[in-house]
């Protein structure tokens, strides 16, 4: 998959989060509290999503201008592994995962947003693979 093809998948993710998945995303997974950017890096390509109260406003290839707020960085191999099991907590666990994802941003921001990032990760898997 090329970087631009993957960007199209993120556009699909945007439609899902703002459409069919919106209710559950905002109210079960706390998406309604999330305003800011979230970046997922595939190998060296960063995809930055911009949210306002759980609605995804935009997504683009590139780093956020003010630095990483919150997000995940991994190789394509790590992402493929995640897409197979789709367990976010396992994928970041230094205790259980031999090759865990790197979390972007501060430990505090990641802890605060652990649940919403987990759900965006799962929906990303759905948008890219299903």
């Amino acid at each position, binding site marked *: 998959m090329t970087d631009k093809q993957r960007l199209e998948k993120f556009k699909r993710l945007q439609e899902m989060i703002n459409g069919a998945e919106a209710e559950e995303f905002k109210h079960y*997974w*706390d998406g309604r*509290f999330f305003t800011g950017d979230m970046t997922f890096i595939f190998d060296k390509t960063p995809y930055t999503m911009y949210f306002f109260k759980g609605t995804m406003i935009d997504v683009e290839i590139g780093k956020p201008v003010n630095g990483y707020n919150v997000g995940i960085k991994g190789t394509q191999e790590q992402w493929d592994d995640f897409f197979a099991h789709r*367990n*976010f*907590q*396992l994928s970041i*666990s*230094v*205790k*259980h995962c031999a090759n865990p994802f790197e979390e972007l941003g501060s*430990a*505090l921001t990641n*802890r*605060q*947003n*652990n*649940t919403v990032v*987990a*759900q965006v990760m799962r929906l990303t898997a759905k948008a890219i693979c299903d």
Partner: protein
Amino acid sequence: MAITGGYIVINGIKTYYETNNGPANPQGTIVALHTAGRDCRQYHGMMDIWANQYTVVALDMPAHGKSWPLPGNVGISDYRQYNQFVWDFIQGMEIKDPIVIGCSVAGNMVYHIAATYPVRAMVAMQASPRIKAMGTSYGATVDLLDHPYVSCQHSHWDFSESLIGSKCPSDAHDFIMWGVCQECGRTKKADLSIYNNYDVTEHLKNIICPCLLIRGEEDWNVPAHYYETAMKSIVNAEKLEFQSVPGYGHFIMVEAPEVICGLIDHFLKGCD
């Protein structure tokens, strides 16, 4: 008879417990220990199932549920102190034949309790006698559970959700997640401080009572290999058995109380 609750003062701590008021059973009295951050209601399902078979007593550890915290408004953060407290509770309740059962952090503790105190039998669920330190990043994560800018409940929501098995009934699922809503960051931090950096492997040879180890197979946080140390190192027990339960996860006594009651009852009857 219905489940009833009461208080007993243990080591100066006003400690809440519940019992199903079940009949005395020659196998022993079940003393049940809850998971990290939660409380004794996790055993209501088992208490109901055993209402006419076993006396079950479940307590809220200090700083959990309705029990008072330690002085300074903190929970127990040392495993020896935790286990001494459980034993003192058993003594205070005048339970002569305790079958100590626990899940998760309490399951880990049960190994040391059985190695240290004269219990009738032990049941460790989703447990390991050895959880190694994971470095400063993990310690920082535990600290953040009690950070003023972090909601313990919201930040732990997905983690707890991820531990539940696919066969868990919806009402049990909802209760488990309600448990997340009720967690106290300071208490959770204390429990996870005990959970990590834990290693009582060298004590396992001192266990002589019957031991039942149970694992819900869908708990990614407690993989199957966590049981290998116990199975290899419990060498002097009267009986040692491992049961793997498909379809269920970390909160297995909440998710499948009928399965756990069946396994424990069968195991205890086999100890005659």
